[in-house]
């Protein structure tokens, strides 16, 4: 029981730690990036453009790690650039979770 509690505690701590690393200001910046810059190709409502649609429905069967790697490394042979030069993995994970949940302006 103690171990479970410890495990839960650790899990909770990890969650807090990941979230805490992104300040509210940084989240606002990332949200803006998602809407405006990702939106240039994927649409501000994420219904697609030159790039594919990224609504929760479109992503429901897509692997989270694959999405993270695509954002970090880009996709060869398409205009999708690698964002690892500007974003940390932690930030990209946050972006992907936003996409799964649905992006609202």
């Amino acid at each position: 029981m103690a171990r479970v509690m410890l495990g839960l505690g650790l899990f909770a701590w990890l969650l807090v730690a990941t979230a805490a690393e992104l300040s509210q200001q940084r989240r606002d910046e990332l949200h803006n990036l998602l809407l405006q810059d990702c939106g240039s190709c994927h649409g501000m409502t994420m219904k697609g453009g030159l790039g594919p649609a990224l609504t929760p429905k479109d992503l429901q069967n897509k692997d989270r790690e694959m999405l993270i790697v695509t954002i970090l490394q880009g996709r060869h042979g398409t205009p999708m650039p690698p964002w690892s030069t500007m974003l940390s993995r932690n930030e990209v994970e946050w972006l992907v979770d936003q996409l799964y949940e649905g992006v609202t302006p």
Partner: protein
Amino acid sequence: MKRLAKVVQQQTRTLFLLCISLLAVSACTTPRGTGDMGVVIERATGSIQVVETTHRTTLAKVEGLGDLSHASVVYSRDARYAYIFGRDGGLTKVDILSGQITKRVMQSGNSIGGAVSQDGKLIAVSNYKPGGVKVFNAATLELVANIPAVYGEASQQSKTVGLVDAPGQRFVFSLYDAGEIWLVDFSQGNMPQITRYKNIGKLPYDGLITPDGRYYIAGLFGEDGLALLDLWHPEKGVKRILNDYGRGKQKLPVYKMPHLEGWAMTEDYAFLPAVGRYEVLVANRRDWKLTKSIEVHGQPVFVMAQPGGRQIWVSFAHPRNDVVQVIDTESMQVIKTLTPGKAVLHMEFTPRGEQVWISARDSNEVSVYDTRTFERLKTLPMDKPSGIFFTDRAHRIGL
């Protein structure tokens, strides 16, 4: 009859009072021309601001235009109506004099831009989903022709890009997925003659027509070089130019696709945004050979010539997009670096080039600069401004 007269009289009086109270802003003022007017897209709120460049003010705000990320505008030939192409497939006709929506249709699921025909009677819209071009009656926005961009054995539909009008009541566009250019001729009526040019290159992502309306040029994302169609001699087919233009061997990531519309052309040279590199490239217009590269602040997005051709103004891709640089076309040097605000998206010159309006999306403002002194003349508050479109576009081929 008497009663009717009284009602009319009352209405006239009410209208008169209304006019007095709205004198500064409404259509009740003395009639005006639209030659110094334009619209600015507010991309996040689905609205536009109608502006004028004489006193540099906003005249009206029009709302309810849908998803305006990557929106563009063309004008009716009398420069009174703006046709606004939204990302969500919305096509809206706005009377800029009254600041009212005249007509609005949802014509597809996902669109990227449009064009107005030489005679002003047709509006063509370039669609991603379903891939193709739809053509509408400019007066009523009723559908005139549907041109699905069908290709391949499985009859897929390609996203269409780089749609422009061309002399001879024609439209030209490129098929992103299929690697084709289509020339669509409406000179014989509403059943267009379509000429398809296949294998023009991989992933054409945008197109432009030279200001004289003679050459259509498609930019290729999938390979180096550009595809050129001579519209005086369409029978000669598409040829490749500027073979060393593009991402080259060391492909650098591109954080915003360079725009081809508004590519700067002076008498002798074309100034092009390098793809991925921090350079503006200079090509000789006679033989389409690259002659020089000019080092600039970031990855260029818009490379636009001031009317008259003396200056080239350059905007940049994320994250170096808080800067605009000015190149002197004679010395081919950067002569000025300006910081108009955060996330500069678009620039538009007044028709004779004495002012340039610059939108800074994340600063929520449009700044007006004097192109001679580089002084900031005015800053107008806007909500996430992107494209700026002045009415002189009504009288220019390809815009």
